[in-house]
């Protein structure tokens, strides 16, 4: 048990004081410790949460493995827990999708990573730098694009981007180079002299993305980058994000699932403030009990008894379709049924039209997870 003086001294110079006496954990920073009213009942529950920026050795090791490392992040708004014990990692060079229904805590997490909010407890590091202790250095390494893309309507596009470049520390020749590059990359060359207030939604999103790209940050954090765009613009944005994923690490938050399927390498699903799934896409679709469904369509009718005799066949559903039958064969094991079904088809002379595995779409997966049909697991922390 530390003496009071020692705790105060260490507390003031080293770490964050957390008092868990209040129902909401609070942090007091930058007040000299002597000004914090200390009651006897608080004494037992003052604890130092974490050390100074001096334990960067561990952070550097983490940076080699994962660019974004979030552990036990919690955010309370009063008594309401927006996110609770959120932990995930984003490896270098990957595109990670951050999925969740509305109100799940996606925007809160991204705002904490970008430094706009402070977490109630937990730790987040980007590129080895702690988001709380070294906020300015972290913000230099992030390109953040908030939801609804706020811009200044009375500025022109090039003027706005030049202003943002100046804020991020780019001046002179380098600023002009990056400006030209970013205007070309985001297809904004035609509208450089147009007032931002007169742009359509697609162009505004592009300006926001261009702003995030300006300082060539290693990490891009995009909050719903394709919200409100029409299909052709969405395709263009997706292509752009895929291209950018080759050079940057991207964390995209969205609730458009086909987009996640097409652009992201792995996905983190967050629901009611907790991470319910965090894995690569392939693993996710096979998570639902390792069941796969094979759909067989053939002309005429098919004798199903021979299929049931095959090993590894679970359920078998048959329905008539115009000019034929459709069978859904559910496997109940890891064994591949498709080759043996093909053999059976040849043997029995089915007139096969289609034989395909029905991949459970991410949307079904998502809805089932979110509606609690599949229990939430936090097992796979590495996405």
């Amino acid at each position, binding site marked *: 048990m530390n003496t009071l003086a020692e705790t105060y001294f260490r507390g003031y110079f080293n770490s964050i004081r957390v008092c868990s006496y209040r129902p909401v954990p609070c*942090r007091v920073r930058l007040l000299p410790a002597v000004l914090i009213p200390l009651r006897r009942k608080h004494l037992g529950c003052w604890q130092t949460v974490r050390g100074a920026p001096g334990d960067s050795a561990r952070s550097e090791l983490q940076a080699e493995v994962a660019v974004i490392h979030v552990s036990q992040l919690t955010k309370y*708004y009063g008594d309401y827990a927006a996110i609770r014990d959120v932990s995930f990692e984003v490896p270098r060079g990957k595109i990670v999708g951050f999925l969740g229904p509305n109100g799940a805590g996606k925007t809160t997490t991204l*705002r904490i990573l*970008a*430094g*706009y*909010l*402070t977490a109630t407890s937990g730790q987040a590091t980007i590129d080895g730098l702690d988001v709380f202790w070294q906020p*300015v*250095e972290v*913000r*230099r390494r*992030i390109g*953040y694009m*908030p939801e*609804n893309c*706020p*811009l*200044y309507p*009375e*500025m022109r596009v090039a003027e706005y981007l*030049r*202003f*943002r*470049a*100046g*804020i*991020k*520390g780019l*001046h*002179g*020749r380098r600023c002009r180079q990056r400006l030209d590059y970013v205007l070309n990359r985001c297809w904004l060359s035609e509208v450089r002299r147009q007032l931002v207030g007169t742009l359509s939604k697609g162009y505004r999103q592009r300006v926001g993305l261009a*702003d995030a790209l300006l300082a060539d940050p290693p990490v891009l954090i995009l909050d719903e980058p394709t919200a409100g765009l029409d299909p052709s613009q969405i395709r263009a944005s997706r292509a752009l994000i895929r291209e950018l994923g080759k050079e940057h690490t991207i964390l995209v938050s969205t609730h458009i699932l086909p987009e996640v399927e097409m652009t992201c390498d792995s996905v983190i699903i967050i629901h009611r403030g907790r991470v319910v799934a965090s894995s690569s896409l392939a693993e996710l679709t096979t998570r639902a009990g390792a069941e796969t469904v094979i759909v067989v369509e053939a002309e005429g009718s098919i004798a199903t008894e021979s299929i049931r005799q095959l090993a590894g066949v679970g359920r078998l559903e048959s329905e008539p379709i115009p000019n034929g039958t459709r069978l859904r064969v559910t496997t109940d094991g890891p064994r591949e049924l498709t080759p043996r079904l093909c053999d059976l088809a040849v043997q029995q002379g089915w007139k096969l039209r289609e034989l395909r595995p029905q991949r459970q779409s991410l949307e079904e997966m998502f809805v089932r997870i979110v509606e609690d049909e599949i229990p939430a697991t936090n097992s796979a922390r590495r996405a």
Partner: protein
Amino acid sequence: MLLAVRATESLMLAVLGLAGLLIAGIAIALIVGLFQARSLLRKEFTAYFISPVAYVMLVVFLAVLGCRFYLALDQLTQGGSQGIEFPMQYLFSILPRGIAGSKAWLMELFSSQAFWVVYLLIPPLLTMRLFAEERNSGTLEVLMTAPLKDWQVVLSKYLACFAFYVILWLPTIVYLPVLLDFKQVEWQPAWTTWSILFVGGLGAVVLAGLLTLLPLGTAGRLSAGLILAAGAACASIGGWFHYHTDSAHVVEVIAGIDPMPVLSTYLGLALAGAMLLAQGMLVSSLLGSQIVAALVSVLLNLAIIVGGLLPLVIDTGGTVSKILYSFCVPLHISQEFGRGQVDTRHVILYGSVALFCLFLTVRSLESRRWR
């Protein structure tokens, strides 16, 4: 006894020297930080000229001030017992003066209070959009996730606002030759070290101004800034010593009325403006909507003007009147700064309130991250 005096003197000098070093260090840190945020400063300053509010404010302000100037001129050109020794005092007075003569109708129209009411409405209108608009449109999030510290953001906005306030007052320089009754401007070839230093300093300032217009890089702008600072220092030191110690001056300006109260009036107005703008910015950063911020700011400014409206009806020797006088800006400007009297009580009031409001604004911005 003598040794004791010397000891305390040297101790005082040491303490003052340390304080000076500390202030210089802080000033350098602030200037470096502002230099990093120069893009934000420039954008905020130009944003004033994009919106029509600023232009309307300029027109109304200069119109009211112009009427006051006309009245002051009218009074100045009357000889005898109605002539005025301190034109700035008359220009900014808040206590109504009995005016006889043909201009009484104008006096009725633009009574003493009108100018000050307009003046106290201006800082709220200038500062209401600083933080409230950013919060409403969501751009505060983008600003606070940029690699800038909170105090850099607050100081950039504040300085841009103050620069616009200075521009608001710049056209009144035109009144000076008339108000001060410049009779004659003579140039004499009185070249001493101080006068050469003075003229050289002025030349360096002009040169630095021209250098900033050229498209040079960061090094060029830094050197221009250094030349400007060095030139200003040389000009002020040289000018001061030249004015006071040399017998013949390079430029002889014969003014009918002492020009020094003009400088003190501008100083008082600048400091009072600094205080009001800082207070307006604090209110804007705390409140959500622009109109509410403007109205609360106007309400706080009314406290400043009430001391000038009441002396006719309350006992001016009593305690209440003294308390009201201590923070009544119009009375300070007209009774003291206008007569050339720079009272450090008022200077400290304006400066400390401005610094305190700036500090609170930085803290309020930081507290946004904690919610």
